């Protein structure tokens, strides 16, 4: 049994109806539930009916996060290895139809990037990101990159195309600690509108990747949806269901979630179908924390510095800082090659200062290759 066989039990429209019909008394029942929250409780907390309870939800989210993770925020840094991509994701800067220069970093360029990253911060957790080009930057290329950076970082995560179980196993042996993969949307029918061609157009292949990661014993799996495609509440509920499934089945794995949010001005060709406000994003983060006290939540530099600073103590557990989303960008920044424009362009040390000023400590290292 894999999740693609289970997901069809959940009807997208029905879930939407459930969420939008939640009442304030459902919200209160969820907030007063002293046992582990059900996905039905979660739906109440992300519903419009909960919008008047944000203050209380924020306090709960802060308390649970502090108890589980302490007054700390983990820092990580993304390293874009390539913008080469065979996919046609209509919202993405790396869409193969975009007439941009394609770069696949060489060994030397990767090490230059590592050096440039180390010069801006004490980063020990790195996220290797690629477009999807199995021929030119496939699993051999990714494995090579992991081995190259391994001696410089305590924890290596990847955000690449879905791989086979065997390939995940192989990368784990080479030093990979975590895999981040976003389903983008759980709306099976509309998924194809956003991913019309290329390997990524196969909804099941992507969704089954999470089971493949689980079976391969990947230590940490990151799930998420891209906010801006479909109704965010329904997608978030589908994500919560998927998370619970994964946690029960692959119980030795740690989970992380994030909600990259497309902005109204982002991209020239694609305008998001759904605009999520900061207030709604905060509600979603609080709701997830109340639903699950242990899941890690990241807030990237897609969000601006004011929002990131305000959210630091309210439920998230990790942040990137100083990010460049163009391959080679730490050594030489070229904005025309980036996947998305960052909103928080402060240096890592400025972000560290902002975290510490709130009485929170920055954790650079929370893993060791010896545990790999």
């Amino acid at each position: 049994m894999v999740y693609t066989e289970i997901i069809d039990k959940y009807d997208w429209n029905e879930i939407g109806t459930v969420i939008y019909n939640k009442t304030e008394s459902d919200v209160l029942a969820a907030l007063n539930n002293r046992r582990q929250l059900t996905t039905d409780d979660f739906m109440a907390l992300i519903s419009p009916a909960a919008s008047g309870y944000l203050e209380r939800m924020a306090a709960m989210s802060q308390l649970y996060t502090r108890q589980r993770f302490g007054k700390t925020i983990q820092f990580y840094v993304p390293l874009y290895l390539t913008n080469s991509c065979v996919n046609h994701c209509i919202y993405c800067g790396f869409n193969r139809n975009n007439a941009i220069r394609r770069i696949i970093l060489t060994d030397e360029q990767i090490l230059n990037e590592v050096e440039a990253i180390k010069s801006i911060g004490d980063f020990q957790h790195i996220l290797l990101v690629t477009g999807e080009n199995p021929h030119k930057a496939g699993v051999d290329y990714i494995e090579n990159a992991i081995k190259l950076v391994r001696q410089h970082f305590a924890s290596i995560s990847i955000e690449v195309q879905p791989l086979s179980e065997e390939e995940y196993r192989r990368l784990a042996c080479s030093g990979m600690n975590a895999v981040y993969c976003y389903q983008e949307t759980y709306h099976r029918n509309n998924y194809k509108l956003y991913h019309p061609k290329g390997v990524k157009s196969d909804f099941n292949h992507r969704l089954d990747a999470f089971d493949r990661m689980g079976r391969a014993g990947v230590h940490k799996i990151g799930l998420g949806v891209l906010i801006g495609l479909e109704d965010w509440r329904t997608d978030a509920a589908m994500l919560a269901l998927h998370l619970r499934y994964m946690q029960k089945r692959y119980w030795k794995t740690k989970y992380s979630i994030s909600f990259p949010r497309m902005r109204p001005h982002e991209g020239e060709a694609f305008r998001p179908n759904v605009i999520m406000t900061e207030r709604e994003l905060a509600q979603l983060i609080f709701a997830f924390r109340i639903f699950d006290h242990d899941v890690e939540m990241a807030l990237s530099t897609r969000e601006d510095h004011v929002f990131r600073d305000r959210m630091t103590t309210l439920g998230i557990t990790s942040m990137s800082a100083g990010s460049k989303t163009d391959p080679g960008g730490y050594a030489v920044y070229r904005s025309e090659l980036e996947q998305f424009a960052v909103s928080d362009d402060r240096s890592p040390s400025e972000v560290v200062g902002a975290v510490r000023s709130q009485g929170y400590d920055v954790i650079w290292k929370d893993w060791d290759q010896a545990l790999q």
Partner: protein
Amino acid sequence: MKNKLTIAGQEFTSRLFLGTGKFGSNELMSAAIKASRTEMVTLAMKRVDMNKPNDDMLTYVRRAGVRLLPNTSGARNASEAILAAHISREAFETNWLKLEIHPDPRYLLPDPIETLRATEQLASEGFVVLPYIQADPVLCKLLEEAGAATVMPLGAPIGTNKGLRTRDLLEIIIEQSRVPVIIDAGIGLPSHASEAMELGADAVLINTAIAAAGNPVAMAEAFHKAVQAGRMAYESVPASKLDVAEASSPLTSFLL
């Protein structure tokens, strides 16, 4: 205190040990260590950058002048823990080890089978092993036989601050144990720590309850006092609780 705590030949005046995670800053952590009067703190080897001689966290812990008890947090089976133990022994120059093996990353509950396996091996290699375990009296005896220097049963799932939810089992462990019993997880309040000491636990280990407190330094001092009070009460032999009142006119006065 009349009886000092001795672990592997080392005497401890304080029966309170601290964890070093979750603090808002290293300064706060070291102030809390000082206020707690502890003589031993545990530190996750995965948090320390061993290639960096002046790693911040380690520098602060060393400066506090307390014994360092490295732990294997993050290890999910015996072989990972054993490898981590070897690296930790070399990096921290101590053969003391808090053995933590938790395959479940949510509740961080210890794996009894892997913990026993790793204890057998590490103790035979000369490590001073302090294993974190379930409050399981049989497991505690097996660990003792395997060469554990102490046993560290949990009071409640780690980080929950729920107190001694495993109290009945802890009482059996304390009654049976030939090695010191350190209650390791779930203690959320100084009163819980007192309760553990009154039961006869040899020591307690606290992290979240202090680190996540509004004022960690004051809370550390409160725990210090609670542990002292609880131990003093234990050594004073508490008057027994009786389920029935003793009649002022004895029932058996007619017996000659």
